[in-house]
């Protein structure tokens, strides 16, 4: 291709023109879509915003999210004996923590928490964690759920019956109880375990949706045709059934990210979140100790959760509406 372009500059220009036209058409279609579904467009913008924050968190965080700010104590008396300190505790420590600094100062944009940590830095690094957990859990749920749903729906019969009962049992559990139980496998739950637990919960949902799509696709004529020319089960599943249920897979993937972020926030709020990581749920909880005097930490992190879940929910709904018009407006 490069040879032709070099030999004929006109053709190269034509190619560029063609490319630009394609780009313009794509842009126009996107704008039309956004105009048709304004709420969805808002959601997508929110998601892009949150993904951007998550991606660039280390550069826009300003401080480390675990750094405890402190100031030198002017009244510190290094020669004070324990008796003096007992009488006047202020002179005992060389530094004091900058606890509960007010928001909107130039040093701490959103103030500090009860340990003197910068709330802005913590909210930003919390965004990164929320995205990792939400997207990670969704990827796990979709991959395992699609595989099991595909096999269960394609082969049907006894295997399908058994899978469905297991899915029933998982869904009979109230989600939070199951999550609590799984993350308790470690005394200090790791990030990976949290993702795994959420993904396991989502696995049941994915199996159910993918399976029902597979059931209809498996009945169609092209699967029958493939079978008639001797294609194996694996080939039919991968080459003929899977591509036709990809829409459902994508819907399952995008629609539940918000729910995972919400569930993780609940776990963190209860003190079962990933250890040693800054999450929004933990922040809401730690802000509760002085809610009446310093509500900022809880309010800011609570709003961050709401905004992120809102964005992912709206974007997920929009993707579902585009891919499956039957479900529109539900």
């Amino acid at each position: 291709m490069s040879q032709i372009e070099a030999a004929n500059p006109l053709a190269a220009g034509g190619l560029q023109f063609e490319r630009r036209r394609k780009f313009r058409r794509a842009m126009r279609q996107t704008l039309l879509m956004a105009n048709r579904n304004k709420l969805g467009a808002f959601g997508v913008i929110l998601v892009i915003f949150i993904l951007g924050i998550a991606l660039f968190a280390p550069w826009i965080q300003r401080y480390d999210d675990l750094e405890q700010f402190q100031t030198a104590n002017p009244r510190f008396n290094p020669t004070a004996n324990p008796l003096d300190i007992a009488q006047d505790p202020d002179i005992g420590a060389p530094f004091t923590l900058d606890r509960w600094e007010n928001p909107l100062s130039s040093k701490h944009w959103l103030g500090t928490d009860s340990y003197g940590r910068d709330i802005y830095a913590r909210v930003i690094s919390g965004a990164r964690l929320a995205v990792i957990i939400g997207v990670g859990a969704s990827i796990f749920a979709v991959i395992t759920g699609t595989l099991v749903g595909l096999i269960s729906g394609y082969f049907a019969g006894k295997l399908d019956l058994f899978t469905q009962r297991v899915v029933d049992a998982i869904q009979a559990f109230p989600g939070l109880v199951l999550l609590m139980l799984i993350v308790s496998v470690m005394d200090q739950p790791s990030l990976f375990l949290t993702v795994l637990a959420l993904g396991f919960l989502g696995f049941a949902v994915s199996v159910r949706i993918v399976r029902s799509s597979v059931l209809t696709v498996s009945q169609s004529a092209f699967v029958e045709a493939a079978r008639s020319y001797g294609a194996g089960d694996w080939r039919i599943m991968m080459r003929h059934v899977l591509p036709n249920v990809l829409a459902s897979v994508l819907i399952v993937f995008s629609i539940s990210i918000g729910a995972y972020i919400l569930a993780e926030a609940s776990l963190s709020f209860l003190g079962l979140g990933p250890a040693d990581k800054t999450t929004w749920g933990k922040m809401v909880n730690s802000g509760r100790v002085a809610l009446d005097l310093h509500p900022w930490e809880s309010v800011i992190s609570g709003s961050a959760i709401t905004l992120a879940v809102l964005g992912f929910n709206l974007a997920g709904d929009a993707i579902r509406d585009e891919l499956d018009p039957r479900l529109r407006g539900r």
Partner: protein
Amino acid sequence: MTNYIIRRLLLNVLVLWLVATMVFLGTHALPSDFAQKRIASTMTGASQTEAIELARKELGLDKPLWRQYLSFMGELSRGDLGHSYESKLSTWTEVGRRVTTTLELGIMTLLISFAISIPIGIISAVKQNTWIDYLLRGVAILGVAMPVFVVAIFLSLAVVKFDLFQIDVLGRPHFWTDPVKAFQLYIVPAIAGGIAGGAGIMRILRSQMLEVMRQDYIRTARSKGLRDDSVWIRHALKNAMLPVITVMGLTISGLVGGQIILETMFNIDGMGRFLFARLNLRDFPPFQGTVIIICFVLVTVNLIVDIIYAWLDPRIRLT
């Protein structure tokens, strides 16, 4: 119909057995047990390991897993949900003490979620694509996205800010002993949980109302001169409520999670907080028992809902 009910009952027994097995395996897969959790905090050194072994023997935790499973299942089949390692009381007693508290909060939450979602769902549907529809839908979408504890925090901030009443009521009153105090204690968590549950109901009700409003019988009702509100309530709402009833099981299941969070948050001694505390202590029998009771209730609610649905809509019975 009888066949349908019997088939569903058998299926539910199977699901409950799977649930019991899962919760048994889940709790026994945990790396630490009650003996460790309790004794590690009081003793150190060689005497500690000895004491842990002794406690394990006493609680029956030293037996092989399959023996423990068999005795667990045997007790379960006789309706015995075991005894708490800590208080030595039976799970039924422990749950019985707290069930009224949980029901008070749960029923209030459910009532509030209906009180919020049904009028909003109707208004949003009949005023489709007006500013009020957009506003109400916006509120519903926000309600789905907000965790219950965040709603609870905003509500309690508002209560404190405007000095409405004391949220943290001492003595944990019941509605029949001190209704005013009980109302003050439960109202904030109930609204928080009600918004989360109601937002989902509202979205389904709205889309169903829109669907129903397009039907011929609505046009007939209108053409025979019925008033608008009469058409909406008596003809449209009745038919739109059916799918809402079917998601009741899901709503109540979601309520359980909210109940755990809210009871823990507001220090209300109900089943949710009990469940959470038992898990943290690795006090397995009451934890397993409470989970099984909750799942039993959920599965039964689902069954009743489905039976009512099949009774109301004969087309379902055939599938």
